[in-house]
């Protein structure tokens, strides 16, 4: 008697009597459907921190890809880090959805430029973007830098440019942002902490 795995389970479910089928030699043939392989088995695990609120829950981020030049790692799963003393492996509805943030269709992929009066973006290179931004900033700084105030006091500030720094950025980004804005003389600096 040939039975598939599925039929075998059906027969078993049909009645107590059928539970003796195995004993009578009616074992199912080779399984056609297998239990799916554990998806993290071949993933690499990276320790990270949730970017949302300042509970700053510990995360385990799982990526697949061998990190060779031609095989970019893709993140396939994110969960709470059980070692973290604060969140102990748990995540809230925001943190539990982080995978969809990483892969959001709203992620930006290339530098883009919108010209004055234009109704569209155009893709530009990083070098082009950096150079054009630097030119704008230098021209404005050179034209509007205030070395001394009305009283003749040395103030060395640049009032026509400003920067909002991200509170979701790392401390290391904060360090370089501080060096950047202060050395240029920018005084209009603020972050989400204000609001």
């Amino acid at each position, binding site marked *: 008697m040939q039975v598939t795995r599925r039929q075998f389970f059906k027969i078993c479910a049909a009645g107590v009597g059928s539970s003796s089928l195995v004993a009578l030699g009616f074992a199912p043939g080779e399984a056609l459907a297998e239990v799916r392989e554990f998806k993290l088995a071949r993933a690499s695990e990276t*320790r990270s*921190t*949730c*970017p*949302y*609120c*300042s*509970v*700053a829950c510990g995360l385990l981020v799982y*990526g697949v890809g061998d990190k060779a030049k031609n095989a970019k*790692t893709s*993140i396939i799963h994110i969960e709470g880090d059980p070692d973290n*003393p*604060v969140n102990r492996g748990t995540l809230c509805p*925001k943190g*539990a*959805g982080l995978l*969809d*943030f990483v892969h*959001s*269709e709203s*992620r*930006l992929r*290339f530098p883009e*430029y*919108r*010209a*004055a*009066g234009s109704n569209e*973006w155009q893709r530009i290179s990083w070098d082009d973007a950096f150079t054009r931004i630097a030119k*704008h*900033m230098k021209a404005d700084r050179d034209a509007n*830098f205030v070395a001394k105030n009305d009283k003749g*006091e040395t103030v*060395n*500030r640049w009032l*026509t440019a400003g*920067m*909002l*720094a*991200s*509170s979701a950025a*790392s*401390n*290391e*980004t*904060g*360090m370089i*942002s*501080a060096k*950047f804005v202060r*050395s*240029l003389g920018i*005084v*209009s*600096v*603020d972050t989400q*902490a*204000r*609001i």
Partner: protein
Amino acid sequence: MTNHWVDIKNADLIIIMGGNAAEAHPCGFKWVTEAKAHRGAKLVVVDPRFNRSAAVSDYYAPIRPGTDIAFLGGVINYLLSNNKIHEEYVKHYTNAPYLVREDFSFNDGLFSGYDAEKRKYNRDTWDYALGKDGYVEIDETLQNPRCVYQLMKQHYARYTPETVSRVCGTPKEAFLKVAEMIGETSRPDKVMTILYALGWTQHTTGSQNIRTMAMIQLLLGNIGRVGGGVNALRGHSNVQGITDMNLVSGVMPGYLRMAADEEQDFQGFLSKRALKPLRPNQMSYWQNFPKFWVSLAKTFYGKAATKENDFSYHWFPKYDKPYDVLQMFERMHNGQMNGFICQGFNPLAAVPCLQKVSAALSKLKYLVVIDPLSTETAEFWRDHGELNSVDASKIQTEVFRLPANCFAEETGSYTNSGRVLQWHWSAADGPGDAKGDVEIIAGIFTRMRDMYRKEGGAFPEPILNLTWPYSIPDQPSPEELAREFSGKALADVTDPKDPTKVLAKAGEQLASFAHLRDDGSTSSGNWLYCGSWSQAGNLMARRETSDPSGLGFYPNWGFSWPANRRVLYNRANCDVSGKPWDPSRKTIAWDGSKWTGFDVPDMRPDAAPEEDVGPFIMHPDGVGHLFALKGMADGPFPEHYEPFETPLGVNPMHPKNPLVTSNPVSRLFAYDKAQLGKADKFPYVATTYRLTEHYHYWTKNVRINSILQPSQFIEMNEELAKEKGIAHGDTVKVTSNRGYIRAVAVVTKRLRPLDIDGKKVHTIGIPIHWGFIGVAKKGFLANRLTPFVGDATAHTPEFKAFLVNIEKV
């Protein structure tokens, strides 16, 4: 947070007011649950809305938005009238016994020194009475009518339970019940903690809301205590870190206040900040300011910063006024700014009064947006119909939109709300050509520097001399930057007590800010973070889960600033003789020769209790300030002022003085003054809030969260809904004097009408998470409604209390 997340489990009473931890900080809120389940702690929630924190509380009291000072002032009055204070703590660890100048006064809502024209105080009289020896005079009996205790008692005597109820709409019995529960923790063996968030900061009295609770915690002896403190549950995962890095107006990393225009002399600048002790034997730790500043200047300008040029003092810009985000957009709106960089910041959604922000951005010559996601700000020029009605052809702003990596694609540290720096590692590359934030800033800077090198230009010295010690100049590594903010010895650093002992050799990473010097021999980009990357390596990356005290300090997990201290002011966890107030919650104690224990002592290690060194070491008097001296813009004692859009039209505490209806010193620009609405046309109070499924304006780009909460709604009470003929699920239009939104009405019992001075006041709740970009259903940015006016001291906008009308559409 003075304390940290896990420490909440050590509290006996938890107050949540001005926040909603269960929904906004769910994984931190677990420690509230832990305290309730295993310690028998009680949870009290005071909020306009019966939110999910309230749903699991032991007691809930409603309150009208914007009246927290009235409520908490009432608590102070209750504690003082019923002798529910921790007397020994108050006498020894606060400025209650200190005498105040004779000419300090308070009259009908105004403190001495008010200038109505400038809307500013001259704060000279808000000061101590000094004796001939230069120290403050004190009266340990607390009887002198000019001592802080008596002045405070007199100030808050007006805040009776009846007045609280009349101003806040909180039923008198509910207020008294909360006050009584709070009062119980004045016992040395009972500790209360307070958890707050934007519900306190986003008011024109925001800073004083927090101060009032800080005063209560001082009166109860709950600061410095395990399970106590004043705990801000902050927003972004690294908002604490970026605050510590002081990417804000007028302050350098480590809270080093920058120079004002008139401070032309470097030594004068330093000595003004190196505060001298106001009482004998006090540490007055800001005396070390010159060491912190010079080490910072060396980080910036290296060998170019010399003793001879005052360590490049004039290369740092000077300030004539605050340039906070409201000031920025005011100036932009006036056409006074040409260029703007938004790094992971979406001001079109996040700054109040969208119409003003949009008009301001339209006046820029160039805008640079650095973000992992598409944002409304980057597309402010694009017409999105009713949701963003603009004509792109008329907007001349050039916009650069630069793709940034997100958290999972970068390596570095975040500082959590409990001041713990934790390292994270990159798991993958960003999509497409995205780059890290560091690389993007470096890319712009190095090109500017090259241009200044070749072409010259305005004041090029700071740009050309900025240290850039990174092995790949276009790609500074997070490790290099972390070592830079932590700090190193530039020459051998020796022990001042024994010059033969070398604490750090030239080139070595420093172990502690105690090793910083003011002679140029050390560098540190942020003294508070000094030691986070020492010779022992990257302490932020530590992951040891041992907890020897059992109190949840985890001393070898990450690095907690300052000096890996887990609870600030922990000297105050002990009585005057150096014994813990509660032996079961011991952090440090005096062992006869030194301070020692489970935490890093917040005290000179050999300061014997007899020396009477106060626990608040950053203050020149060593004690906690019940009287704030000159620190706050709007007064040394918090006073109730109405929101700028008040449903009452007058301040019920001072009905006859129109100068003090709302905060008399909040900055109000002419354009925004004209935009304020009145109760005759906009009779309902509105308050903005957040949902547990969403995070600001990010998660509308995230599929799962957009499925969980797909559509914009507002929340209103049943009585008002009936009155206006609005049913659950109807579409309504909510209008302020600045604009409108349309949303689905959710009619609930969670909001209730309050009786304010005989008048019925309804509150409408407005979640903020929708906009015209993202995968969620499109909606209106809620800041079309909110007023462009901020707190008098911190300039944080008043998102939590304004006036609207509502109609069915």
